[in-house]
């Protein structure tokens, strides 16, 4: 409507571009949906494990008689199924689809991604079974027993190769910021995971050097794998939904390169107070504070892009999830930089505050972004619409309210716990007892999020297997009007 380029007026060019897009989406359909459907299976399993772990913290007797379901197994099983099964699986699906769209390159050799998805699922099954049967490696974010990693790495090698194949076939010229993020993350994840596996599992380094590598991995997998894929999704979806380029492309470049240059130095701030060389921890504290640069550039950019289009949040399911996630990214990152500062860390370390922070990152940011992206992708991949706006609405509100309630309750409870722990006159058991109300609130928040996930899975299954509903209008929350959709 505005700013139309010459080619957009040429009907032949429009038709060519439309056909090209349809071919790309058709090529991605089978393999990408295989990855997404698998991811949603792990999301549901991870949710069940999460609820169990949460209840056990305030009702230790719950399912305590079965060794497979004790807290020490259920909790890492929850974390790993969510991190690898759900979030990483969905990131591969979302990332490769956006890559194929931006490279204008149909996905080739889809069978390889089908096999990779099977491998990915086997790796997660082996890992989850291993943890629940008592074989956890007891290293944060790396609890899957050694047998899982080769499957996961082999599967991921296919995803990386697919990304490279698309980048090689891109039209000459500019590489969009989302392509930078995606391309880099397809290398960063296997590099991080392989390094951690080699140095901690296959040929372990000296024991005192293991925690820094463990935390370097656990923190960087967030910053160099989930964050880039999710920011790539935001940089693609926000302009596509509102029809407006990002506010400042220059800022987006600063954001990407400052993340690429400095993020890998993060991680060891998790060991503040531990018996480590001061330089090792200080380097990470400095790098964490420096992360304010990419975060502020992304926050400013997304906010200014959205200005004038916030009305679209009323009707677009995709945008609502994506903007919620983008805002959470700002909050969780600023919170993270502050938490890495020694004075703050002294209070918050080893309390529920850290758990709340982790969920703000992995859920309010990463998971909500992936939900938003899947709401955008599925109608394009399947050529049919979401079955019900009401189900999407239930999903959004349960997930959004759930995670905010979760974060609020545990952050407050955690701070109180941390301050109490500084008080030598307060008995330890009193401090623990005082956290109980917050732990119960967490379970209720978890119930809300579970309802959201069930609504999402129902939508997804109805869309895949339900009666085909041929419609010519999108499934939106309300009908957009000139007032709510100025574009």
């Amino acid at each position, binding site marked *: 409507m505005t700013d139309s380029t010459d080619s957009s007026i040429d009907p032949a060019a429009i038709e060519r571009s439309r056909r090209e897009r349809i071919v790309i989406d058709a090529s991605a359909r089978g393999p990408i949906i295989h990855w997404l459907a698998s991811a949603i299976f792990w999301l549901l399993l991870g949710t069940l494990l999460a609820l169990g772990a949460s209840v056990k913290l305030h009702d230790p007797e719950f399912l305590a008689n079965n060794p497979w379901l004790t807290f020490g197994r259920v909790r890492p099983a929850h974390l790993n199924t969510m991190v690898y099964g759900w979030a990483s699986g969905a990131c591969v699906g979302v990332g490769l689809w956006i890559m194929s769209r931006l490279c204008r390159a149909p996905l080739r050799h889809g069978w390889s991604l089908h096999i990779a998805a099977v491998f990915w699922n086997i790796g997660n099954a082996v890992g989850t079974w291993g943890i629940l049967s008592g074989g956890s490696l007891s290293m944060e974010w790396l609890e899957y027993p050694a047998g899982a990693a080769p499957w996961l790495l082999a599967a991921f090698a296919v995803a990386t190769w697919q990304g490279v194949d698309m980048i090689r076939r891109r039209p000459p010229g500019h590489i969009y910021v989302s392509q930078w993020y995606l391309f880099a993350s397809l290398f960063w994840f296997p590099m991080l995971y392989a390094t951690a596996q080699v140095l901690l599992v296959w040929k372990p380094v000296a024991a005192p*050097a293991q925690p820094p590598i463990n935390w370097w991995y656990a923190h960087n997998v967030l910053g160099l794998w989930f964050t880039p894929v999710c920011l790539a999704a935001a940089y693609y979806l926000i302009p596509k939904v509102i029809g407006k380029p990002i506010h400042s492309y220059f800022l987006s470049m600063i954001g990407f390169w400052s993340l690429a240059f400095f993020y890998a130095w993060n991680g060891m701030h998790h060991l503040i107070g531990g018996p480590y060389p001061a330089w090792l921890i200080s380097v990470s504290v400095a790098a964490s504070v420096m992360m304010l640069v990419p975060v502020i550039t992304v926050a400013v950019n997304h906010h200014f892009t959205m200005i004038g289009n916030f009305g679209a949040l009323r009707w677009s399911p995709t945008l609502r999830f994506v903007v919620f996630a983008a805002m959470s990214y700002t909050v969780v990152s600023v919170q993270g930089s502050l938490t890495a500062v020694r004075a703050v860390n002294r209070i918050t370390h080893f309390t529920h505050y850290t758990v709340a922070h982790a969920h703000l990152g992995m859920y309010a940011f990463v998971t909500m972004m992936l939900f938003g992206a899947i709401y955008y992708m599925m109608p394009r991949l399947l050529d049919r619409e979401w079955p019900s706006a009401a189900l999407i609405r239930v999903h959004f509100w349960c997930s959004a309210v759930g995670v905010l309630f979760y974060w609020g309750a545990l952050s407050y409870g955690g701070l109180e716990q941390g301050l109490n722990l500084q008080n030598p006159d307060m008995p330890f058991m009193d401090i623990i007892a005082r956290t109980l109300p917050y732990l119960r609130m967490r379970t209720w928040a978890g119930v809300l999020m579970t309802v959201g996930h069930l609504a999402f899975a129902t939508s997804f299954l109805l869309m895949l297997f339900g009666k085909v509903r041929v419609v010519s209008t999108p499934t939106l929350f309300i009908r957009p009007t000139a007032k709510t959709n100025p574009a």
Partner: protein
Amino acid sequence: MTLSFVLILLILVGFTVTTVFIFGWAARTGQFSDLNAGAKTVFSPDEPEGESTDSFPDKKI
């Protein structure tokens, strides 16, 4: 054990050095020369700037 910590430092430096090389390639090949045009590469003739795409996709060919 000192060797292990040196290894950690080498990994960190390795990540940054790789990034420096790729940044150099991006600068040499003109990735930063026309940023405004770059921002518009998400749009295409059938999904142009100024149009919301959150809608039901077109029918198949």
